[in-house]
């Protein structure tokens, strides 16, 4: 057995993207004008140059991975990575001040540099039991130039974990725990004075699970665990106009970590004809962070804007995910998949905004193989979404949209041309041209979703 192995990896990704100038939202009137126009108000002219507004992105990743095989039961893996993400945003709207505009600088630039180190010990302490223990460390620095977007910060995160998996007979037992600590240091100008704020988050978390294979057809699973995450920089510090969403978003720097206690149970059932997967869960989340509409809209020099605030509450989520496949005939399969969740805000004893509505999607697949090995595939599905009526009363700018039923279809014909596979397909989404709005889409306040969309696709997969 080889003792040592080291891999060095480097990659770079560069892109210069033009942005559709009609999509920049100055204010709500501009947005409404754009939505109600039958064609974009600015048609522009043809050119190969990428003009403002545009976005320049550069990602760089350097990685070293080393493996040490100590013996057949112990292995060490070390990984160091350095990632640099650079983003330059050029607004169409250059500075009013000519001397600033002449510099041609981006409206703002973000530089995010992440160093990460991971040390992992894969081991087998006993027969039938495999495990992994590790330390991971991350150091991240974010700097901006130009217009303020999110504040500069330095982040140090350390995690220590142990995970063991035990197999005996038809059972598989899993247990793990982890300790994490994140230190966030934020540098922000307030009334022209540079301030430094420190945020510390630390948390133990653990999980345990058991799964059992029953006979040839059944697998049952049960999981109990805790999980957590520290708040993100925008949840803590955003404060201002979000041009992509035509809204003012306000963070709260008193937000603490989000801690979840999760319970999950599931069954899998598989035979020649049936394939069923059902999971139920109950999650208690203390300090759940979500973006809540904050009425009334705020008045600015650009007109009134809706306001959203990050709010932290205790909440519970119970739900079910379901997927059933049944082979009706040799070439016919019917299926259904669905997801249902019930959420409750325990801090205010009320429902919450932004919880997905119940969704059920039945479908049918017809598949036929011709004698010459050509394959015809026809698929229809009908996603059904209910109205979300479990919301806090009068807490949103517009009430949740009505439920809807869509019909989607797809016909694919696959054939071989001199051993080369070719797929021809015709796809139609929203076949009935249903007018509907999606509750989770922020633009539902202003516009309907896309109507009937017909696509024709030619796919030639090949290997080099």
């Amino acid at each position, binding site marked *: 057995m080889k003792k040592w192995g080291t891999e060095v990896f480097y990659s770079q990704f560069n892109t210069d993207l033009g942005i559709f100038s009609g999509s920049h939202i100055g204010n709500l009137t501009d947005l409404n004008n754009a939505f109600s126009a039958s064609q974009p108000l600015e048609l522009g002219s043809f050119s190969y140059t990428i003009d403002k507004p545009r976005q320049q992105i550069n990602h760089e990743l350097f990685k070293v991975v080393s493996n040490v095989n100590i013996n057949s039961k112990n292995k060490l893996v070390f990984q160091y990575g350095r990632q640099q993400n650079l983003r330059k945003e050029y607004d169409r709207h250059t500075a009013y001040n000519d001397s600033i505009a002449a510099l041609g600088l981006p409206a703002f630039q973000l530089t995010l540099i992440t*160093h990460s180190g991971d040390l992992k010990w894969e081991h087998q302490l006993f027969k039938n039991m495999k495990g992994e223990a590790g330390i991971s460390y991350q150091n991240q620095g974010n700097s901006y*130039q*130009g217009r*303020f977007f999110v504040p500069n910060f330095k982040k140090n995160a350390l995690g220590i974990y142990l995970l063991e998996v035990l197999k005996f007979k038809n059972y598989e037992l899993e247990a793990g725990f982890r300790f994490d600590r994140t230190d966030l240091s934020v540098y922000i100008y307030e009334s022209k004075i540079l301030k430094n704020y420190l945020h510390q988050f630390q948390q133990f978390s653990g999980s345990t699970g058991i799964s059992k294979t029953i006979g040839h057809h059944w697998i049952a699973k049960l999981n109990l665990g805790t999980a957590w995450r520290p708040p993100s920089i925008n949840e803590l510090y955003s404060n201002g106009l979000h041009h992509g969403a035509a809204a003012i978003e306000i963070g709260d720097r008193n937000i603490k970590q989000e801690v979840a206690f999760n319970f999950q149970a599931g069954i899998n059932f598989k035979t020649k004809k049936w394939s069923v997967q059902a999971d139920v869960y109950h999650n208690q989340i203390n300090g759940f962070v979500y973006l809540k509409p904050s009425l009334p809209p705020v008045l600015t020099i650009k007109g009134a804007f809706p306001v959203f605030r990050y709010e932290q509450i205790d909440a519970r989520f119970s739900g079910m995910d379901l997927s059933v496949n049944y082979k009706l005939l040799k070439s016919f399969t019917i299926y259904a998949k669905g997801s249902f969740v019930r959420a409750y805000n325990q801090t205010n004893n009320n429902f919450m905004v932004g919880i997905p509505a119940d969704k059920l999607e039945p479908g049918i697949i017809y598949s036929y193989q011709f004698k010459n090995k050509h394959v015809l595939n026809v698929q229809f599905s009908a996603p059904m979404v209910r109205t979300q009526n479990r919301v806090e009363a009068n807490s949103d700018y517009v009430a949740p949209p009505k439920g809807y039923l869509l019909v989607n279809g797809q016909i694919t014909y696959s054939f071989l041309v001199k051993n080369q596979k070719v797929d021809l397909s015709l796809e139609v989404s929203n076949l009935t041209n249903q007018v509907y709005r999606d509750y989770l889409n922020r633009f539902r306040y202003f516009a309907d979703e896309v109507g009937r969309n017909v696509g024709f696709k030619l796919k030639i997969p090949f290997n080099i």
Partner: protein
Amino acid sequence: MKKLYVILAIFSISLVILSSCKKIDPETPPIPMNEGELITTFKIVFTDPNGINLTYEAVFRDIDGAGGNQPTAFDTIRLKPNSTYDTSIQLLNESVFPTFTITNEILQEAGDHLICFNINGVNVSVQRTDSDGLFEIGLLSTWTVANISTGNVTISLKHQPGIKNGNCDLGDSDIELNFVTKVE
């Protein structure tokens, strides 16, 4: 087992060395430079060319920009019936010292800007009186006032780089203020 500890030690040392070399420093963010770009104050001054009615000023002022504290002034436009006013619009940034006059920058780029007036329910008509050479600008205008009424006048500044054709639908709205307007 001893070997394992040695390897562990080497890795943890190299981890510390690698993570301590950094090039840019988040501890020194740039001094907010776009403050000169903030429009905090919109002022429209009404003067009677015949000298009969008193000069009237309507102001919108929000020193800290969008969000944060509420605007500190949003005046009602009050005009006398059956009269004519010459108006001029001033755009200021009062969050810096000395106050920065953005109107001058707009005049320099007059070919990219248009001020629009949308009148609703009040007996007033507005005619822009300045020009960028091709199209009107709207920083100066004449308001003709008829009989007593109450309504709104929405005044907006449109930024239309390279696309200005006199049409108010084009471009981004840099300003949109809906002034309650009373002829009394």
